[in-house]
């Protein structure tokens, strides 16, 4: 178990390292930020001063090393737009995003998992078919289409809810519902197929053949085993709490991290993009690590395993 966790930790650190390198390469080598931030007719001295103050004059390997050193010291750069620390600008946006993604996660779990389990236990029933149609619907309707249709119906035609903005709790309803429906569908589909897979296993037949009550078979044998693949999907959802709402935030003009990212990307505000990339990667890695821990709880076999064989 210990070596398993250590190898996972090593992998997590490696992923973070790769993300940092990736963001450095993409963000630094793809153009001269000085010319993009400053207007093209700015005096050359001003451009030179800008480059010097951001360290853009140094050779690229030194910029890379400086960058790593700075990140390790928690110095994540300043926004090239207004000079405030990027980490501060990003963290100001985090509560707004969590205000959408946490209730949405709750919605996903409370609808998706029970629906999937129920559908699997009553395979081919009418409810199963309804759940599956809902799941396919959630898979195939892009979030921006769902969002716009909801706006069209509830804001434009019925006039019940505001179209966009973030002034009152009523503004959060449509974005949360948009995020929740899509995720619930994904979760329901995963849970259902995980349950079906387990229900077809010989040990389930054995358990019920030895006279165990069906409810006990489901609770004691089927659910814990079906939890493993479901936890993986759930881990991904937890990991995307920060960045899972890029499109939805853009549609609803919600002042969260995702919208900040889109704006920062189009302004080429390097520091902000880097911070968001690192934060997102960090949460993803942390969530994956928690998933690995959960594996250990749900599946004692993994304690011995060297690698958890893919998704």
């Amino acid at each position, binding site marked *: 178990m210990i070596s398993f966790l250590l190898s996972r930790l090593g992998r997590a650190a*490696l992923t973070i390292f790769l993300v940092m390198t990736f963001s450095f390469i993409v963000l630094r080598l793809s153009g001269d930020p000085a010319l993009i931030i400053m207007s093209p007719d700015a005096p050359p001295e001003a451009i030179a001063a800008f480059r010097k103050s951001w360290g853009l004059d140094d050779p690229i390997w030194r910029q890379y090393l400086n960058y790593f050193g700075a990140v390790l010291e928690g110095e994540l750069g300043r926004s090239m737009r207004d000079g405030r620390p990027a980490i501060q600008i990003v963290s100001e946006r985090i509560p707004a995003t969590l205000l959408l993604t946490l209730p949405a996660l709750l919605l996903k779990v409370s609808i998706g998992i029970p629906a999937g389990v129920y559908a699997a236990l009553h395979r081919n029933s009418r409810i199963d078919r309804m759940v599956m149609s809902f799941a396919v619907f959630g898979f195939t309707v892009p979030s*921006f289409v769902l969002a716009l249709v909801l*706006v069209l119906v509830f804001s434009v035609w019925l006039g019940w809810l505001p179209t966009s903005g973030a002034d009152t709790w009523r503004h959060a309803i449509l974005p949360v519902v948009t995020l929740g429906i899509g995720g619930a569908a994904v979760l329901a589909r995963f849970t259902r197929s995980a349950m079906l897979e387990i229900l077809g296993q010989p040990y389930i037949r054995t358990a019920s053949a030895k006279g165990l009550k069906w409810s006990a078979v489901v609770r004691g044998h089927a659910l814990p085993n079906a939890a493993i693949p479901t936890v993986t999907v759930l881990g991904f959802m937890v990991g995307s709490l920060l960045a899972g709402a890029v499109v939805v935030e853009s549609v609803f003009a919600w002042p969260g991290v995702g919208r900040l*990212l889109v704006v920062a*990307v189009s302004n080429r505000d390097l520091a902000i993009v880097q911070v968001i*990339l690192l934060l997102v*990667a960090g949460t993803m890695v942390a969530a994956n690590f928690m998933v690995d821990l959960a594996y250990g709880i749900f599946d004692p076999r993994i304690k011995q395993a060297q690698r958890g064989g893919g998704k």
Partner: protein
Amino acid sequence: MSVFSKASETSPTEVAATKPEAIPLGVKLGAIWLCLMLLVALIGPSLTPYSFTAIDLKARLALPFTTLHWLGTDELGRDVLSRLVVSIRISLLVSLVATIISATFGTVLGFLAAHFRGWVEQVVLILADFQASIPFLIFALAVLAFFGNSLSLFIMLMGLYGWERYARIARGLAISANAQGYAAAVRQIGAKPSRIYLRHILPNTASTLIVSMTLVFPEIILLESGLSFLGLGVQPPMTSLGNMVGYGREYLTRAPWILLTPASVIVLTTLSVSMLGDWLRDRLDPTLK
């Protein structure tokens, strides 16, 4: 279905999914829709009544279902039907090419990992972990905005989507195939690795990989339309389905048809591919469930 065929096909131990069934209606409709979309993408643009960029300021925001503009016009008086046809071509082109790139890339890496094992395998697995650990939208946003945007770069980027899934699947399949008799037999005869992988292991694993492609394809359509919707995918004057929805959003209240037609095409297409893919998966490879 005759009693005869039923008796010959069904054995008591077999699971329900392997029983031959009539093709479900949804799958048929999906296949018809996809054929229609392919046809539109191939010959549609030469049949459209207007150029997709032709501006007609006298006919701005014309209502749909009129003889001149079947699906109405947009804010610049451009014919929505003509734009839709071109958008379908672009979106399908991007998604199809990207799916093929991603499947090829991922499968090759998976086979390399299975063949060399050792550090090659570790590198492939680490890269796969890395790719899987960043939400692709974030990854794509960073790359696109910073490398600028051209259609070919955009397609290449979309071609990175999902490669890690093929790589993992191909690696797993190839490792187990290598342990099986047929691969060992061909190797004993003295076949080169490239021959073993391409002529023997690939055909034996193709069904699983094809099913994975049908699962990734709709996601690529959604990704393409999502990025284009944000204004960071296919760039004007070129148009794509997501692009049309993105620009139509400004006219949501006054002219919802600009947005609703491309949106329904996206939904119907992804729906069709998913249904076809699910059905294929049940037929070809129940293990993927």
